[in-house]
């Protein structure tokens, strides 16, 4: 579903990504792994249009996206759950969810039942301000918000960062549910090794802006994977 | 600059010589009349009209054969409502364009800016607007009203005819209202009005929030005395003032308002149906009935447009310009000193009937008119005095009462009659 070829990206004069190629098939989870500062977040920013990439191609299905701006990327079906959640702090949970309607035609602008089934806590918190939620709740809100756009590609950046274990489990269950539904390609950037390894179908290991290793889950043991990620 | 000017002048002269035989032989150059009125900035509202009036007068004079057999050329400059620029442009007119006379200025501050320049260069200025007096310059002829030709008669009307016992003096905070109100306060106290029965208020230029002030004025009536308002409010601020007055239901029968700065032009900015009966005092109203006025209005509308109105400063320019033309003809030259001498005693018919006379103190003797506002934005003249001689130094302030201006006999604009000496030959700025 998501096809990224030879993507390069600069911050000012310094090159952050050196020709990344990434293919995320629909209905599967592709995990991008690597220690801090290897360019994982930059990669997601480039795909979601939040930071312009320098060179390379980006496509969602058959649709070529030529250096999309963030909102064209979103409307093309790339939903982005950023690191740090980026909830709108002064808006209620309901309003946060409704921001996603911008991607939808008028007659589809409703919050599907399913969302509250996935994240029942949001139903209780509907009227609360986004900024007042706990980190875990915010994370769920961020994912729910992304799902309402009916995405073809879901980009998740460190969804477990700073979140208590039970919520992590819940998020994990949600992701596998989404994978099973098979409506979207999921790209997961994660430092939590166990979490990532548990969910992913494919791995892309990055180091210093380059792809160091790519592998399907079947082809690599956790130990080998850890070896790749060694500190 | 000068080089350019003389070059173009000689080209112009050459053109004249080759293409036109209109000018008499001794007219190498046309007689130049400087027009020093703001065409941009805040004062353009009032002054543009005067520039147009001057152009019309010059055109009429040229059509009537020019002056001393020469064409008259109007040199128009724009001091842009910027007071220092008035001095600069006046200097330019006198030294670069070498005009023979200047007609110009509206605000007092612009006149004060120009005074040192024309006194230094011995120019001649005709100033057409009603002003606060307390000034006399050898180089200025004041064709507008001095306080005793507008403020004092209007106050007399209030005292005599309307029986006003308590006065609200409302003004914009600048020199004309300040000085006029000082004079009026002294005058009212002389006429037996107690000091506590005089309420004074100053507001900024363009003030729009009048509710409180109007309420204060209405409250003045609480001791049962007849209240009257003397307004020296300037320009746009009047619109808000009259709107608030109308809204508060203050009719001219309850609290009459007489204004010194509201003319036909100012009234065109608002609906006057609620203001009928309020007053203004001037030396001229468009509604004055005389043949000269009918002709003047017709000529003006033909020149400037059907919807244009005439007003007092225009009449002042009309009289001033014609007097100057006659004085030049009497002197046979445009030389400033000769023209000045010829100016004294010049007579010219007013547009309102009667005759204006130029006095040795450089002011005119003119009748004072009081008009009531009508629903159509014109004034109904209900009182007209005989000619009142303009007085440069008011008799109602102790410092000024001892001063006298007489350039013809005494050769001094600021002559102290007590010490019998001339305080100064230049004017005070």
């Amino acid at each position, binding site marked *: 579903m998501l096809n990224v070829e030879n993507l390069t990206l600069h911050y000012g004069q310094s090159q952050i990504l050196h020709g990344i190629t990434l293919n995320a098939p629909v209905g599967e989870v592709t995990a991008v792994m690597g220690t801090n500062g290897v360019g994982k977040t930059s990669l997601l920013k480039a795909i979601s*249009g939040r930071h312009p990439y320098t060179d390379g191609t980006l496509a969602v299905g058959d649709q070529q996206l030529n250096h999309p701006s963030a*909102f064209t*990327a*979103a409307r093309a079906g790339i939903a*982005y759950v*950023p690191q740090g959640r*980026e909830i*709108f*702090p002064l*808006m209620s949970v309901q*309003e946060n969810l409704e*921001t996603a*309607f911008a*991607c939808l035609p008028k007659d589809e602008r409703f919050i599907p039942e399913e969302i509250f089934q996935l994240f029942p806590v949001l139903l209780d918190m509907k009227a609360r301000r986004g900024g007042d939620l706990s980190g875990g709740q915010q994370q769920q809100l961020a994912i729910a918000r992304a799902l309402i*756009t009916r995405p073809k590609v879901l980009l998740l950046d460190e969804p477990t960062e700073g979140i208590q274990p039970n919520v992590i489990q819940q998020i994990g269950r949600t992701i596998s549910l989404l994978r099973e539904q098979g409506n979207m390609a999921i790209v997961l950037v994660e430092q939590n090794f166990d979490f990532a390894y548990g969910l992913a179908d494919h791995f892309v290991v990055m180091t210093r802006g380059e792809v160091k290793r790519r592998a399907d889950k079947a082809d690599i043991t956790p130990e080998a994977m850890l070896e790749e990620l060694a500190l | 600059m000068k080089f350019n000017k003389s070059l173009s002048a000689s080209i112009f002269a050459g053109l004249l010589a080759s293409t036109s035989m209109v000018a008499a032989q001794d007219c190498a150059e046309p007689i130049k009349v400087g027009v020093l009125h703001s065409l*941009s900035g*805040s004062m353009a*509202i009032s002054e543009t009209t005067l520039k147009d009036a001057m152009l019309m007068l010059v055109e009429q004079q040229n059509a009537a054969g020019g002056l001393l057999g020469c064409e008259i050329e109007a040199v128009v400059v724009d001091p842009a409502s910027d007071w220092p620029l008035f001095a600069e442009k006046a200097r330019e007119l006198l030294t670069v364009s070498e005009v023979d006379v200047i007609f110009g200025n509206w605000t007092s501050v612009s006149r004060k800016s120009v005074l040192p320049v024309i006194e230094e260069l011995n120019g001649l200025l005709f100033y057409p607007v009603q002003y606060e007096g307390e000034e006399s310059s050898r180089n200025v002829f004041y064709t507008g009203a001095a306080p005793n030709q507008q403020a004092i008669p209007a106050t007399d009307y209030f005292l*005599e*005819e*309307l*029986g006003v016992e308590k006065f609200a003096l409302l003004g914009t*905070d600048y020199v004309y209202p300040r000085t006029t109100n000082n004079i009026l306060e002294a005058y009212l106290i002389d006429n037996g009005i107690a000091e506590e029965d005089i*309420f*004074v*208020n*100053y*507001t*900024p230029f*363009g003030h*729009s*929030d009048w*509710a*409180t*002030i109007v*309420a*204060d004025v209405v*409250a003045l*009536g*609480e*001791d*049962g*005395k007849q209240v009257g308002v003397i307004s020296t409010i300037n320009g746009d601020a009047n*619109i*808000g003032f009259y*709107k608030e007055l*109308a*809204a*508060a239901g203050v009719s001219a*029968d309850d609290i*009459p308002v007489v204004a010194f700065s509201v003319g036909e*032009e100012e009234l*065109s*900015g*608002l609906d006057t149906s609620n203001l009928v009966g309020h007053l203004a005092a001037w030396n001229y109203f468009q509604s004055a009935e005389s043949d000269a006025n009918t002709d003047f209005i017709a000529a003006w509308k033909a020149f400037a447009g059907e919807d244009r109105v005439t007003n007092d400063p225009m009449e002042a320019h009309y009289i001033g310009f014609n007097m100057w033309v006659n004085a030049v003809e009497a002197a046979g030259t445009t030389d400033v000193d000769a023209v000045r001498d010829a100016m004294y005693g010049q007579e010219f018919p007013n547009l309102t009937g009667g005759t204006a006379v130029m006095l040795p103190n450089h002011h005119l003797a003119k009748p004072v008119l*009081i008009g*009531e506002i009508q629903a159509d934005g014109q004034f109904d*003249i*209900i*009182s007209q005095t005989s000619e009142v001689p303009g007085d440069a130094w008011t008799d109602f302030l102790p410092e000024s009462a001892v001063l006298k201006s007489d350039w013809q006999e005494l050769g001094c604009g600021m002559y102290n009659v007590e010490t019998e000496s001339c305080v100064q030959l230049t004017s005070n700025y």
Partner: protein
Amino acid sequence: MPRVLILLALLLGFSPAAQAQELQTLLQPHAQEVAKPGRRTVGTVLDDLASSGIPQVATFLEEWQDKSVWQSPEGLFFIADEDGDNLILTDIDSGVETTAPSDGFTQLKPNGGVRRVIGTALVQFQLMDPDLNRRTTAVASIARRPEASQLAPLLGSIDGEEDPTLKARKIQLANFLSASFAEEPTDRIAAISSLSTDVSVEARAVLNQILTTRPALAEELPTDVNVARVLNPGEDMSLDAAYELLVADDLAAPRTDADTIKAALASNIINGRVGDVPVAQLGTTANRNRAYAQLAHSGTVPPLVTDTDRDAALAKFTFFEIYDEADTAITDAATTALASVETRVAVGQSADLALDALSLASIYFLAAIGLAITFGVMGVINMAHGEFIMMGAYTGYVVQLFIPSYTASIIIALPLAFAVTFAAGVAMERLVIRHLYHRPLETLLATFGISIALQQLAKNIFGTQARPLTSPAWLDGAWVFNDVVQISYIRIAIFVLAVIFLFLILFVLKRTRLGLEVRAVTQNPGMAASMGINPDRINMLTFGLGSGIAGIAGVAIGLYAKVTSEMGADYIVQSFMTVVVGGVGNVWGTLAGASLIGFLQKGIEWLNPSNTLAAQTYMILFIILFIQFRPKGIVALKGRAAAD
């Protein structure tokens, strides 16, 4: 004049018999006074007319008051109507209509003072008139010039009055007249006491008139007069003023002022000296006084009255004020009533001041609310905001040119002004501001450029003269609670408009899709874009909204004040201060800022009512200090603009 006299003689000769009955003949001896009446002198004519008993007198007086009476070249008076160059003349006696060319006729224009006197004379004819308007006019005339003689007819007319409002008014007036003029002191006291709850200016006038005093002095305080209070020189009046009173009564010698001394010295110079002081040394006050003392000693000039002399003279006398009204009971009653009224008036004045402040606050709010969106929410410094206000006002003016009905024109002008300024705002955002989002200071410069260009453009199109923008008749006048507390309808309308806008904007921001997207973009533009919101479009619409509101504010401001090309400049600095003081990024903040500024300004004005300019100066100084100590404003909130 001689010609008039001859004519008069002719007239008299022709109809000697009708002389007594005809108004025209009655008027002719007074012709000059009728043609040019004066307030003080017109009384004799009116007395003659009133006592003549001629039935046409009332009509004539009304027409005269109405400036509808003309004098023919022969000196005869007609009621006339202008019809082109002709006059339709109505004979004042017979009512016969004729037509004559208007040449030579002069219209009689009695001035306001005379018209008022005529009105008083008309009272007796109009008070019982079947026409309600005339009765109302008569009552108004009484109110303007209350006289003792009017009390009886007024009381007589009350019972027959059918109109309840007018009847109440008549009773009120009768009460005023009784308080001043009733014969029995008890009647007067009763009337006076009933006024103690009436805060109207008229009631206070009645009471104050009863309590008028005059100053007096005597060696001993007299017991046979109604003394209002004793005046202590130095406390209640200045010592010099008290001494002046003595001088005026020839009870003391006048004081010698500096000019008199100087003049005396100048006329007594002998051999270059005055006394033993050389003229050259007379440049100090001390030396002058020494020289004068020597002159006084030699008897050349009257002696100097020193401060000690003055005080000694004053000590011999008592100064006091006497009521014009001799009856103590009446003045006491009036004093009590007035004290009660004045308490109520003070309360009323505070309320009125608060209303004025509220009104001013709503005007500031209206002027600033568009800016609260463009500057407060988006962080764009739009110096042309004032010009958008101006554009709105001119839109209102142009609409009135085409649509004569003021009501309809305002209804059309409001949305049209919004549309015009919305379009202007969007155009400006697209063409200029979009490129400058990261350079806020330069937005200031660029929009300032647009501001002066728009201002000059308006001058070129509409001229420099102020243009009329007239409110519909139902907004004329004021809501009058009483004579102290009142506020004009147009200000109420502006207040209502401000409230509507407050809620409208809150509604748009909180309850609409646009508002949701605006808030999302404001709080986190990047994330908003990632949710599929086009920030460019939102910025454009938000800016358009802010500008559009400025346009509507312009119509409102134009209605209550003026429409000129420079009107926007009057509001721009204050609008920015309103937003900054209130706290950027919050509509409630703007409300708080406008209220603070409005109430502050009225408060300072109240402290110094004669100088409005000073109030504005101190208000701004206060704001400068306020921002120093609370840089984020009253309602501080984080927003995109708050970041820099």
